[in-house]
């Protein structure tokens, strides 16, 4: 079996400036906090980040946002990190806003070899301005192109040594989708079990999507606090 386990630092070293990066999580929940912490030490600029939010102020994805490493963020809800809004106003950050369902479907499409799909979501609103539209059965739909990335960093609950994954409660969110839509996929997990240690019927992400596995050293606590055991 190929050894897929690497350290968080080795994961961070796979990043280069200008890359497009998918980052799993709904806020901090289901976010690869250990790898994001390791990215603090990595010199890299002008990343395009695809993630529902950009973490919290100074936490998770908010760490590298604060460091000015992100040039563009594509997501659905930036309001929850006031620093992102401030940097956007100061022209230090570009933002591309998509409805959450359109964002998640565009990532799935990216992984599924579908270049574009139609959705009625946002039709007739400001978010549809400038987008190609088409009428089906008398209703207007917006054309949405798929999203892909150079690297995805995601969070799962358990990985077997081959890279099969299961998730934990609402920490699943965007992670299984991003696992399919990037050239290199790095998963941070709570626990690594031997090959065959997961029920084949309950595997959510099959191993063929996973390039590298990182043992998580971060715990999400109440009140949006994170504890690291580095």
């Amino acid at each position: 079996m190929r050894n897929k386990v690497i350290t968080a630092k080795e994961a961070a070293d796979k990043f280069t400036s200008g890359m497009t990066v998918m980052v799993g999580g709904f806020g901090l929940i289901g976010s690869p906090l250990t790898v994001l912490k390791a990215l603090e030490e990595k010199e890299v600029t002008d990343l395009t980040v695809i993630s529902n939010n950009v973490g919290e102020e100074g936490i998770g994805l908010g760490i590298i946002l604060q460091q000015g490493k992100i040039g563009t963020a594509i997501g659905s809800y930036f309001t929850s990190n006031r620093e992102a809004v401030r940097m956007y106003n100061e022209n230090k950050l570009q933002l591309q806003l998509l409805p959450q369902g359109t964002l998640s479907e565009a990532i799935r499409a990216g992984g599924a070899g579908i270049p574009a799909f139609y959705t009625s979501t946002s039709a007739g609103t400001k978010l549809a301005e400038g987008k190609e539209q088409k009428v089906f059965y008398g209703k207007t739909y917006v054309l949405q192109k798929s999203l892909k990335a150079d690297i995805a960093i995601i969070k799962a609950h358990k990985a077997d040594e081959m890279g099969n994954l299961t998730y934990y409660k609402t920490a699943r969110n965007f992670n299984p989708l991003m696992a399919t839509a990037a050239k290199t996929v790095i998963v941070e997990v709570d626990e690594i079990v031997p090959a065959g240690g997961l029920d084949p019927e309950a595997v959510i992400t099959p191993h063929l999507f996973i390039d590298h596995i990182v043992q998580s050293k971060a715990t999400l606590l109440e009140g949006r606090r994170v504890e690291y055991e580095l």
Partner: protein
Amino acid sequence: MNYKQIIAQKVASHIPQYSIINLGIGIPTLVPDYLGDSECYFHTENGMLGVSELKEEQLDPQLVNAGKLPIGEAIGASYFHSADSFAMIRGGHIDIAILGALQVDSKGRIANWAIPGKDIVGVGGAMDLLEGAKTIIVTMLHTSKDGDKKLLDECSFPITSERTADLIITERATFKWSKSGYELIEVTDGYTLEDIKESTGLQYTVSDQLVKESAL
């Protein structure tokens, strides 16, 4: 009861048993308190069906609703990823979405995601819910703190969807969407038809049924 509780209780009275419900943040989260024995199932768009009230001993930072607040897990719950969750929403599998709104207009369109002159930096799942849920119930205070109208002939804020909201429930009144536009179907005790008329900018008709009730 405070205004929010009054609204939540009124919303509950419009919800059939066994409904699949998506709750927005704010007032909607109070609705389950008023459902009594009626069995309903709660969906949260970040990836779960079977949200229940949080009990202290259940507190789990990785189990949250769309407002990122901790929740509980009901019997028969299930988890799914974001694309499957929004497939449920967009595909018409959610019976009722209960949402907050900043404005509603005579065409039944709501505005709840952006304010003119402010940066547009967040939309979340609001647009998808408006497109996909079978029934839309809007909960809101009837006017702003300063007394400005929020039920308007035309929204001055950017609309969230072309889709019409089925019910608008405020602390003062309930409006129901019909072929001819909104119909006033209920007025809270203590308010007169005149009160509603003065504080409401959107066009509506008064239900025959309501007239009878308020004549008591």
